[in-house]
């Protein structure tokens, strides 16, 4: 059976399994959820090993007719880009389950519903990256909103209902614009060789469009992805949603769901509309640079630890978008790697921040202080995650951030230079909470906070291991990413700028 379909079916079957466990056996439900997500992770890793990184075509392809009268297929397949993101998703899910062992309790509904939602979401996370049929992608893209909406609205904290609605409306707005563009593409494909939603065939369609049509269709896709990613000024849903959701939800939201935006930019915007991409590149690079600096400043000014992390992500997504539209192999590979690394470093930050908040009963930075002496392991975990977020060399984010910067510099030096100022701001937005929360005298009320228990250590250890290991040895990922990045750029007709001083000589 096809590996991708198997991976998508497993969580669904798992959710059915959980559905038959009585609601009062909470522990059994959690164990089942963990077992299923671990199984999926193992499948994901096996898929990884079976992947032929030299081949730039889609692999593990499966295509089944779904709605033949419209030319819609259930079609899946992965290349280097989507494989990396799927791997990230399936690795993060069990960690989220384990780290947020108790966060399903005290919600509006039972723990059972929580894990069913998580598992359904996992299926969709795999599907959204694996889909090679634009319609299938769209369906999953929109359907993903449903479990996330309930996860935030039902299990979050604070003003969770409002945050969930805002998230839903923003995403729907983008999704509908994308739907219009998809229908446009479908109509054009009908006039040029038969109706289809197959991405490979649709990527030929730009030859038959006027530039206006192409620009409009491009914008439909791009705005949807820019909301997802999120890019300034379409970002205001993120801090609320991330701060209100449970830590686990926020990890999946920031770590995986938002990546659909940047993934979509590469997979759809660039591939389907190469000319429009070129037209809009200056605008997008500008927005990306604004996001980098703007997100960083807002993170510096944030008083809530979860909102702070959300704002740092806006800055990081700026880097990713900039790298994508720099149209160099370094920028592209860097951005793809960045997506993976950001998933893990943000996961670590959010998970630890969640533990801090649940222990203290508050996520205000000012309520912490001196944690390094009270809860050393937790403080260290937060510190390492923070160091990864500020792209300390030797940790994974550095490799990707530097690749993005170098890749951008060769084509857009000004943008890269401004973006580089973001690394100084990054030092501030990480070290300020580190100082306030971890250093200094112990704030009254925090003296007896418990340090991480075994379960929590087991949950955070693999994340830390990935962050550190990939910092020193990113080759396993880069080897998979590079051919795909090179291939995408080659199809686009871009070549890397030559070293300017040796070119003439």
């Amino acid at each position, binding site marked *: 059976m096809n590996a991708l379909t198997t991976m998508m079916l497993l969580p669904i079957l798992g959710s059915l399994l959980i559905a038959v466990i009585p609601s009062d056996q909470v522990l059994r439900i959690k164990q089942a959820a963990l077992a299923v997500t671990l199984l999926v992770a193992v499948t994901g890793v096996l898929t990884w090993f079976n992947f032929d990184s030299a081949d730039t075509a889609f692999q593990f392809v499966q295509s089944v007719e779904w709605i033949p009268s419209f030319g819609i297929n259930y079609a899946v397949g992965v290349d280097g880009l989507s494989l990396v993101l799927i791997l990230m998703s399936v690795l993060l899910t069990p960690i989220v389950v384990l780290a947020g062992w108790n966060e399903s309790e005290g919600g509006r509904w039972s723990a059972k519903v929580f894990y069913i939602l998580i598992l359904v979401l996992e299926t969709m996370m795999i599907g959204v990256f694996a889909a090679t049929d634009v319609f299938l992608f769209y369906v999953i893209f929109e359907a993903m909103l449903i479990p996330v909406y309930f996860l935030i609205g039902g299990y979050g904290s604070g003003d969770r209902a409002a945050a969930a609605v805002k998230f839903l409306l923003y995403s729907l707005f983008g999704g509908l614009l994308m739907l219009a563009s998809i229908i446009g593409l479908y109509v054009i494909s009908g006039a040029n060789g038969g109706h289809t939603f197959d991405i490979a065939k649709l990527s030929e369609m730009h030859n038959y469009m006027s530039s206006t049509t192409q620009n409009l269709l491009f914008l439909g896709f791009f705005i949807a992805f820019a909301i997802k990613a999120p890019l300034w000024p379409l970002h*205001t849903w993120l801090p609320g949603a991330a701060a209100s959701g449970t830590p686990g939800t926020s990890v999946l939201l920031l770590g995986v769901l938002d990546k659909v935006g940047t993934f979509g930019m590469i997979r759809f915007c660039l591939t389907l509309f190469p000319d429009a991409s070129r037209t809009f590149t200056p605008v997008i690079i500008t927005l990306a640079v604004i996001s980098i600096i703007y997100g960083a*400043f807002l993170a510096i000014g944030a008083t809530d630890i979860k909102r702070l992390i959300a704002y740092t992500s806006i800055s990081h997504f700026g880097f990713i978008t900039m790298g994508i539209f720099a149209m160099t192999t370094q920028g592209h590979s860097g951005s793809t790697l960045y997506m993976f690394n950001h998933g893990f470093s943000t996961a670590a930050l959010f998970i630890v921040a969640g533990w801090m908040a649940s222990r203290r009963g508050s996520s205000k930075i000012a309520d912490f202080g001196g944690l390094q002496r009270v809860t050393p392991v937790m403080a260290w975990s937060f510190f390492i995650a923070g160091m990864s977020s500020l792209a*300390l060399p030797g940790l994974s984010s*550095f490799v990707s951030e530097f690749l993005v910067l170098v890749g951008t510099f060769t084509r857009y030096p000004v943008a890269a230079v401004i973006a580089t*100022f973001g690394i100084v701001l990054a030092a501030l937005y990480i070290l300020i909470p580190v*100082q306030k929360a*971890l250093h*200094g005298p112990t704030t009254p009320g925090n003296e007896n906070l418990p340090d991480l228990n075994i379960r929590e250590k087991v949950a955070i250890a693999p994340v830390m291991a990935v962050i550190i290991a990939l910092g020193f040895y990113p*080759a396993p990922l880069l080897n998979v990413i*590079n051919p795909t990045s090179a291939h995408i750029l080659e199809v686009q007709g871009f070549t890397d700028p030559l070293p300017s001083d040796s070119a003439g000589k």
Partner: protein
Amino acid sequence: MTTSTSLGYLIALPLAGSIILLLAGRKADKWGHLLATALSASSFGLGLYQLSQMLRLEPEERAFTQKLFSWISVGTFNVDAGLLLDQLSICFVLLITGVGTLIHIYSISYMSHDRDRRRFFAYLNLFIAAMLLLVLGDSYLNLYVGWEGVGLASYLLIGFWNQKPAYATASKKAFVMNRIGDMGLSFAIMIAFATLGTVTFAGVKEASESASTATLTGIGIMLLIAAAGKSAQFPLQAWLGDAMAGPTPVSALIHAATMVTAGVYLITRSNFIFDAAPTAQLLVVIVGAVTLIFGALIGTAKDDIKKALAASTMSQIGYMTLAAGLGPAGYAIAIMHLLTHGFFKAGMFLGAGSVMHGMKDQVNMRRYGALGKFMPITFVTFGLGYLAIIGVPPFAGFYSKDLIIETAFNAGGVKGILLGSMTLFGAILTAFYMTRVMVLTFTSPERWEEDQHPHESPILMWLPMVVLAIGSVTTGYLFTRGDALVHWLEPVFGEHGEHTELLPHKVVSALAITAVIIGASIALVKYQFSEVDAEAPNKVSILTRLARKDLLQDSFNESVFMRPGQVLTRWLVKGDDNVVDGTVRLVGRTALGAGAELRRTQTGFARSYSALILIGALVLIAGIWVITQ
């Protein structure tokens, strides 16, 4: 050259130490410091072994690189995790591991009462590993890893006692200011890759021969910014004084002997760039000259012994930077001063630590006095370091500083005279503030606070001080005998041609010694032979007041960068809420308002609905009819 041992072990040993100590937790409290010291010492042993291997070979064959694995490879951007051992890096390897090991030994005793001693040693080992990576990396990117690695270690160690908010702030300040420098290094690497297509030292060196001057000037200036950040050079110097918040061994190792000299390493390592970029080179000289005076001026007014030494470090690195900016004639001399400085300044910092150890962590020199009687070993070792730093022959600092002054004078033209005078003036200041430190601490009458019982430190503390003192006495002679160090480094820096000699060697020496005598005499008159207040006097000249405030460096940074930055942050936070999100909320409110208005048409009466439907249908039919007609 092939070698049986991998250079990787040099770094791996201390790195393993820090990881083991951090992961083992409290279980390692008993043996952690011993393991860390042993690993640092074995790294030193490996360094000596490498040196012995190198000595067997011809000078041109001594340098070699070792590829460990391919680190980042995307398109044409290929960076290996590669190590380069040559005559320059071996100097640093031995300095780092040698002084590092001594300071490990010292810290065993110095930190013995701290409940987190294990963590301290873990950080020290982490620092050693990162610093070795910095000097052994074979490309700018590898150097960058070590560069930020030492920044991290420095951050952790400055903030070692971060339960005090001021210390936590100091560590943050150091990290952020270093990051500004790091940004310069990023830019340099980006420019190098975009213009030259490579980031390895060897590659850039080769490409620089055909590169345009503009490119090299750009890279050079960016490297200078990086060096200024790491080496506390003007205008990124403000963090060093605050960095004294760290435990004293840290100040000795990181903020005197090794890490802060990394900037000098970077500039000398990039000699091929600066040689071909006169503008950048000139800037290096200017930065060095400004810092050397700047630091020395601050040093004259500090009452905190560690801050006085820190200001001195800043000034001495200014000397090195200046020398490194003088081109081929200066590189080797900069390194020489760096090495001698590593010995005497580390020794003096350890001495200061020993004094603090005996004086209940009192750092105010106005509360010292007459300690020479109670701490003879500290007094002697500190005194030897003192003689070395002010440049009394035949101590180490004399040789190296003398050469810098001479090279500065011989730089030619007005520039030479100007630089030479500045270095001489710096020498006067150095003699003054160091004599002041010496007198206030050891020889002037006692001004202790009550309940002080000064005593000599235990052997584990004074032994390293003695070793370093021996170094401060002998190294200058050893390095200059037959120009040993200059010749040793020649394969890296290239031979420099004969330079115009403005002043003969002997005249320069005489001038330098005169400068020392002037400076030392003023200090003696002011502090040894006249009463010293136990409280810092308030009625002082404006210059002293400025120097006490570090020549307003913090006020400047705060008013130009920090406050506007804070205001901007506040504005952006408000703007994001009110303008950006406000727009979104406005859309939402508009929709709600429109709904509220339209709801009035919904009366709830089924019959009025049906009437409306009927009318609507009729209108529709009428419409169609009109159109089709």
